[in-house]
């Protein structure tokens, strides 16, 4: 279950000022709050060296934090926007190198999850779960991953992915329908 934000909105402005000044304690709090979800997002995006990517995202956050204005949830969405840019770059790079499979291990996985019980699903490995996500379109998979990671609302996912709330809701519905079909398939 994704952790709830450890920095309440009422304190976030002070935290943001301290972070802009380079207070390492505050940066640690921000990292503990966001890094686990970011790492999950990066792993789900099949980016190589996920932990390094998380480090790069935080460096980029530090570089641009002076430009950020908003509350805690806005900050979290902003950080994920930066991470998503890395995902988009990775997808584009892979599209240019079509001869290279996205992830042979994931693609070799046989999606025969028919009649899988909830408990059983929770026991399967990450690669198997991601193999199902990979059966979705990129847009649907992105929405599902964000939904699973941070409990984002459709509006917040729209902010991260630069889509309208209605578009995100439609992607969610289609993704759920596709997952349901995959999970129910014999």
């Amino acid at each position, binding site marked *: *279950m*994704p952790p709830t934000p450890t920095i309440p909105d009422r304190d976030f402005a002070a935290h943001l000022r301290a*972070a*802009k*000044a*380079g*207070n*390492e304690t505050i*940066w*640690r709090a921000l*990292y*503990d709050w966001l*890094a*686990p*979800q970011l*790492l*999950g*997002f990066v*792993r*789900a995006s099949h980016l190589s060296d996920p*932990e390094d990517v*998380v*480090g790069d995202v*935080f*460096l980029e*956050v*530090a*570089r641009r*934090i*002076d430009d950020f204005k908003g509350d805690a949830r806005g900050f979290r969405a902003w950080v994920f926007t930066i991470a998503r840019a890395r995902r988009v770059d990775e997808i584009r790079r892979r599209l240019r190198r079509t001869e290279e499979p996205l992830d042979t291990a994931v693609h070799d996985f046989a999606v025969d999850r028919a009649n*899988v*019980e*909830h*408990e059983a*699903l*929770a*026991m*399967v*490995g*990450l690669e198997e*779960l*991601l193999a*199902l*996500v990979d059966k979705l379109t990129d847009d649907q998979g992105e929405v*599902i*991953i964000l*939904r*699973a*990671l941070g*409990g984002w*609302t*459709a509006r917040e996912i729209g902010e991260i992915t630069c889509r309208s709330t209605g578009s995100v*809701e439609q992607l*969610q*519905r289609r993704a*759920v329908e596709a*997952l*349901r079909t995959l*999970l*129910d398939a014999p």
Partner: protein
Amino acid sequence: MAPLNDSLGMERPGQSHEVSGFLTALSDELVLAPDEVTASRHVAAAAARARALARGPRTMRWVATATALVTVLGTGGVALAGGLPDPIQTAVADVARVLPLPIDIPYPHASRLWSAQESVDKPEIDTWSRGTAIDALAAETQSGEKGGWIEARPAEYRTSRTVRSWDRDHTGHLWCLSDGEGRHAAEDLNSTCDNEFVAPPRFDQKVDEQIDNIDREDGRDDEEPRQGGESDGDGSGSVDHDDADNRGQDDSDRREERHDGSPDDFSSTERL
């Protein structure tokens, strides 16, 4: 996790049970904190970058100010020494002459001469004609004074309009001063006394024309007594000879005759 059936728009909760379980399992698998060593490294790097950027604007302002100050002072110093590249030195010297500042910024050694040559109505041809600097040096040696006036008539000289003043700067360069129009570099007397001060070829024709114009307009009154005597003496059929023959006529008549004469009529041997 939030109630997925609602947030995902599932109309049939019973059928979304597996999807909900799937998302929970996916979240549990994905959300994983980096190890402590990695986390500490990331945090330290991010905080350090934020600190650097927080100090950046103030530091950059100081750096920019210091750089500008050094540039201005350095450029000014080099300009005073006359060491800037030619166009820049000329521009700085021009500005310094316009501004009411007690600063004498020299013009570039050579280029200012040419630019002045092109810009003034009466070109300072003598400042770079053969012999001027030599005669200046000779006069300086005789008088024991540095700077002054000279009326030189070297054999190579093409015109008798040679009254000029000169001065030296601290580097030993000769500067010809003329008609209060400023300083024009002539040549380094220490090294080029025997050199010819010849204008670039592209100016030759123009200078000849200018010399002719000057002689016609106001040179005759000063030069004619001596030149006329010389011409009378040799009896040549040159322009000067014509001038002597026509002595007593009004100026307009003589100018017309000069205008009709060929450029060769102004050769130095005949004039001098």
